[in-house]
């Protein structure tokens, strides 16, 4: 494949699209699929055939359109209309309304802050292209960044460009991506690996799944550019087995890319060769930790090991290995295409670019959103999210999953960036954001996350294995009304111990949900202990006594 051939494919695709007066895009990402969007798509196809409109209208399955709470979503191009909750019975009405303007009862206003306040970089193709067609990706400019990286840039230039962009790892800790790349690039070894971490384990997070399901080639292209920069020839994508659709689309995309020559030997007629294999995770949260993930790819128990040596020096089978998260890799293509300066101009001083959040919980508009770093929590919850369901009161937003914390109401104006979130005792994490209202008990939420960490602890180090169990028991006592003031002190001491002495990130961050709720919602803990009362009415007090 040459650049001219890519451009030719893009041109043909664009012409073909132009030829249709109406283009109907039906969301077929997992969220909408679970509201039967597949049968809606089928109904459109049938109805169009029945009316003989095939030459005027085409129907396409696309990736995530974002507003999951309004599924199944259908977008009409080029009119730029978005319909929500489209049922099979609405199909003929939608077709009738194609020429006369939108169908009022189903239309989502394009002026909705949910759409207007977003800035789509990672998700720019989501909802626009058919994730199962390589031509669609090429028509959207796909694989041109790889061409640039292979033919017009040296590996050092690529790495420098990523360094200058200020991109930081989107998996949680926010380590500078360029620095990681240059460390692997400097490692002196013939064999190196690039791994894409798609083991999205945080409950309440579905950003990576949406990217993989909606735009898989974007991730493959990012990996290939990364491989060129660090000098690797083999790549692995470690993806959750719980995401069968993402796995299927990834495998299909890899086969397409191999066939077209974007993966394999002599890519773009250069000496560069790179292949990608998919490895399935098997439901172990700890495998999101990079050394555990490597062990799992090697077919072993997913248990972390002490670092150093870091995977950049000794990773998969002992070779230098670059591990980046899905969203990080999805940022590479636009940085190479638009330049590091453009990217560095978005976001805050220390957190550049955008962040994708999986907005869920008690907000009106749930779904997948992408906003510039530094956007305030208030804007996300009350403008993009459309406020709290049923007019209830905002209580907290949980970010970072079991490693994160709860942000209280008085911090609503907090800008969403790595440093600000750390200041209030939470973390950016991978992007799960669960909004809670007065019906959620913060002690119960802390107990929920500790239950998660307890069962996900791999058992290798004592502080995490025993500590999480003990903390969970104490929280169990408090939530069933048998906790004492002494337990609260013990709880704080234990959290401190587990945080500072655990081997890997899982244990070190496991106390975060407890510590952040203790910090911001201490009165709720007090109410449980002193008054044997759960202010949210969630905990069934006295249950423990009866049970014992």
């Amino acid at each position, binding site marked *: 494949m040459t650049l001219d051939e890519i451009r030719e494919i893009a041109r043909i695709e664009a012409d073909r699209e132009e030829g249709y007066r109406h283009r109907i895009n039906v969301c077929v990402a997992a969220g909408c699929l679970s509201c039967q969007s597949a049968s809606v798509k089928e109904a459109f196809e049938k109805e169009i055939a029945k009316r003989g409109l095939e030459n005027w209208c085409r129907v396409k399955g696309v990736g995530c359109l974002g507003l999951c709470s309004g599924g199944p979503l259908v977008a009409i191009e080029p009119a730029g209309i978005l319909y929500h909750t489209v049922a099979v019975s609405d199909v003929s009405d939608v077709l009738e309304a194609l020429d006369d303007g939108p169908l009022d009862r189903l239309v989502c206003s394009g002026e909705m802050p949910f759409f207007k306040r977003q800035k789509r970089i990672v998700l720019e193709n989501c909802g626009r292209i058919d994730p199962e067609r390589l031509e669609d990706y090429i028509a959207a400019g796909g694989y041109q960044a790889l061409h640039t990286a292979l033919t017009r840039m040296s590996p050092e230039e690529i790495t420098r460009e990523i360094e200058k962009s200020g991109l930081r790892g989107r998996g949680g800790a926010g380590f500078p991506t360029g620095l990681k790349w240059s460390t692997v690039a400097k490692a002196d070894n013939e064999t190196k690996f690039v791994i894409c971490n798609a083991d999205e*384990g945080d409950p309440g997070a*579905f950003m990576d799944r949406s990217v993989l399901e909606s735009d898989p080639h974007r991730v493959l292209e990012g990996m290939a550019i990364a491989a060129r920069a660090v000098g690797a020839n083999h790549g692995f994508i470690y993806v959750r087995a*719980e995401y069968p659709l993402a796995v299927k689309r990834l495998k299909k995309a890899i086969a397409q890319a191999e066939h077209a020559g974007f993966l394999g030997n002599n890519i773009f007629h250069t000496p560069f060769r790179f292949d990608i294999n998919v490895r399935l995770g098997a439901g172990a949260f700890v495998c999101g930790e990079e050394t555990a993930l490597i062990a*799992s790819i090697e*077919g072993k128990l997913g248990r972390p090991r002490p670092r150093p040596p870091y995977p950049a020096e000794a990773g998969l089978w002992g070779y230098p290995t670059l591990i980046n998260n899905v969203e990080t890799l999805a940022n590479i293509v636009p940085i190479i295409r638009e330049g590091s300066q453009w990217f560095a101009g978005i976001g805050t001083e220390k957190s550049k670019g955008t962040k994708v959040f999986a907005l869920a*919980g008690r907000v009106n508009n749930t779904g997948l959103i992408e906003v510039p770093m530094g956007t305030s929590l208030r804007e996300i919850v009350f403008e993009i999210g459309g406020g709290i369901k049923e007019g209830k009161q905002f209580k907290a937003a949980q970010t970072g999953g079991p490693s994160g914390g709860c942000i209280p109401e008085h911090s609503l104006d907090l800008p969403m960036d790595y440093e600000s979130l750390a200041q209030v005792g939470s973390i950016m994490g991978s992007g799960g954001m669960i909004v809670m209202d007065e019906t959620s008990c913060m002690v119960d939420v802390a107990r929920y996350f500790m239950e998660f960490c307890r069962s996900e602890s791999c058992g290798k180090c004592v502080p995490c294995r025993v500590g999480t169990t003990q903390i969970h028991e104490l929280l169990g006592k408090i939530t069933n009304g048998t906790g004492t003031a002494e337990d609260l002190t013990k709880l704080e001491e234990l959290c401190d111990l587990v945080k500072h002495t655990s081997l890997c990130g899982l244990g070190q961050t496991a106390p975060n949900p407890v510590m952040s709720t203790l910090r911001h919602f201490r009165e709720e803990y007090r109410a449980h202990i002193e008054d044997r009362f759960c202010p949210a009415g969630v905990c069934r007090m006295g249950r423990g006594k009866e049970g014992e």
Partner: protein
Amino acid sequence: MEALKPIAMKAQDETSKRIDDPRWRRVNRVMRLHGYKPNALIETLHMVQDTFGFLELETLKYVAQTLQVPLSRVYAVATFYHFFTLKPPGRHTCVVCMGTACYISGAANIIGDIEQSLHIGPGETTADGAISLVTARCLGSCGLAPAVVLDGEIKGKITPAEILETLERWKTDDAG
């Protein structure tokens, strides 16, 4: 390397024994594609579970032998990862998502109602082998919380009543 040869040949014999069964052919194919290397273990177990529904001890022995991995390690891997199960599933499976969004939308109550209806807990199967109850860490359908998977089909914004209705149908299906 020489010392390993007889074991490898023995494994080959086992392989040929199972060559006629199309289900085993799928499993063997995965191992062959990975060059019978020990690092194919997890991929192979995925295929075994996908094909047979669960991991039987005899199967684990066969995989251990073919990939030349100690059975103890195969067992360790099979029990370490939550995705693998050593027990046969029921004819119907109900997966309840316990992700954060589902939890604060009442997933615990859903589990409670199902437990009452089926008299089994998460990870168990009814005595007649009809229905298995499973919990998931997170299905990633948080925008549609609470979510469940009923026989492979994801259902969002589900109510306990809807699930119980399906469970009742499953119970009577099998009786009839």
